[in-house]
């Protein structure tokens, strides 16, 4: 085992270094694509946001921070931000409550609970573009949903759910809740499956009601799932575009406009690329906070 110091020190060093260098090659494809599209894109956005530019001509007119000044005084920007926030809070709360309830229901002895488990997830895999287009027609004054409501209530219902400013945002929220409650259900279902049964039994023996059991034992045990669903919910709310674009396109007026839709409108419809870039920078800044949160959550659970 005793070898000359020169041999033991010199020999493994060279292949070691070669290996270290080749290790970087495995990072290259991902880095080229992510840095090339995402990072360069974000930096370019910051540059474009200082221009008065239509997005097509090779150069725009530098205007400094004028686009940001415009953004902070643009009522539609604030409405879009508010709608995005309302959409996020409402969809997250409802999807969590209903998802939790479904996860409990499939653990009772109720008839058809297996079908419920399978069906709850079907809307999740559908394209939001298909779901949005379908509901646009189902929710018209003479659409199938009003037809069903009329026959249930016994009186004619002709509400224009998506065209009436007082119901449009709520209708969009409910479409999203219909489509994605299955996702919250899935997360709660997986987490409930890992709760130690003896904890439940002990609480039962102590005479707790089902409501007390859910409220004081099960719900607190699922705090990790609550947190994950809130973070993922905000991320998907920030990304929501198809659903709004294909149901109301932000209307009537700007009552259902969201940040993504407003960026699309400014950039693609009106060729205000410089202003659109400033709006994008705002959206990226918000999204970045939640990227960090999601990575933290996911890595913590893996360890």
């Amino acid at each position, binding site marked *: 085992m005793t070898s000359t110091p020169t041999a033991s020190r010199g020999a493994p060093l060279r292949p070691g270094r070669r290996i*270290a260098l*080749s*290790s970087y090659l495995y*990072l290259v*494809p*991902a880095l080229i*694509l*992510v840095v090339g*599209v*995402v990072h360069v894109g974000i930096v*370019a956005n910051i540059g*474009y946001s200082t221009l008065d530019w239509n997005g097509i001509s090779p150069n725009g007119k530098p205007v400094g921070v004028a686009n940001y000044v415009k953004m902070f005084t643009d009522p539609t920007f604030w409405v879009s931000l508010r709608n995005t926030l309302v959409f996020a809070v409402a969809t997250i709360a409802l999807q969590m409550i209903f998802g939790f*309830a479904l996860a409990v*229901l499939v653990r*009772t002895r*109720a*008839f*058809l609970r297996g079908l*419920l488990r399978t069906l*709850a*997830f*079907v*809307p999740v*895999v559908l*394209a*939001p*573009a*298909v779901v949005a*287009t*379908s509901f646009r*027609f*189902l929710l018209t004054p003479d659409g*199938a949903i009003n037809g*069903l409501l009329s026959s249930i209530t016994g009186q004619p219902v002709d509400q224009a759910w998506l065209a009436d400013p007082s119901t449009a945002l709520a209708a969009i929220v409910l479409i999203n809740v*219909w489509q994605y409650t299955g996702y919250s259900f*899935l997360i709660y279902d*997986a987490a*409930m499956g890992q*709760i130690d*049964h003896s904890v*439940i039994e002990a609480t039962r023996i102590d005479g707790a009601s*089902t409501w007390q059991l859910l409220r004081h034992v099960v719900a607190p045990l699922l705090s990790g*799932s609550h947190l*994950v669903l809130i973070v993922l919910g905000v*991320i998907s709310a*920030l*990304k929501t*575009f198809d659903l709004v674009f294909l149901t109301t396109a932000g209307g009537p007026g700007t009552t259902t406009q969201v940040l*993504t839709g407003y*960026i*699309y409108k400014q*950039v693609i419809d009106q060729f205000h*690329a410089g202003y659109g870039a400033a709006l*994008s920078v705002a959206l*990226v800044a918000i*999204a*970045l906070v939640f990227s960090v949160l999601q990575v933290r959550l*996911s890595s913590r*659970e*893996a360890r």
Partner: protein
Amino acid sequence: MFQHQRLPGRVISQILVVIALALLIAPLAMIVQTSLQGQGPENYAIVISTTPFLRFFVNSLVISGVTVLLVLICSISSAYAIATLRPRGSRLAMVLILAGMALPGIALIVPLFYVIQALGLLNTYWAVIVPLTAISIPFGALVATNYIRALPVELYEAARIDGASNWTYFVRILIPVARPIIAVITIFTFLAAWNEYTLPLIFIQETDLQVLTQVPTYFQSQRLVDTPKIFAAGVLISLPIVLAYVLMQRLFREGMSAGAVK
């Protein structure tokens, strides 16, 4: 878990199960019912034969397939470097990759539109595939890194002592061992790509290159708005993915919860 219920509890949960099923099924039933109005089942035949439906189907398949392949290559290999090889600076690489995690694609349309146009890539598959791949890699890299980190260190060390190079280990041992996470990333990415609407909407105007999610809009842009046909198209678009879900439920559940649970 909640199986020991008294009678009132049982009745209430049974009623709630029925209500939940009704709420889930009603819109689906309405969609199918509307798709059969007018000319009945023939609506489906008309959608397939009078529109470039099959062409759109192939386009969706090509874009989704290539995106999945690229995302797999990029995320598994970067995860291998980050979790196992760990060259100096790999933590920084991970931070750079994961930064794109929650990024809405729309936030990048200004630079994308300019670059894609300047490179003459408008109306090509690449205009959709490249951005879609870039924003899908962070999730893939994250779950793959978590998976590879959880593997026993001895797996890599034993292979190296047996004389395997990093490349041999990657191809012969890691990829077969990582099959479950490859399945998860495949399903998650395929679903996102198959259902993607925004990028094709912006970057593909040529009818020949459009994808399935644009079919409903295609019908509305034609002079007559034929509602039953729009619904028939919606059902046809959804059928493959719903069928895949029903056949591979466990895999879908794992794939969709991977970003959250692990």
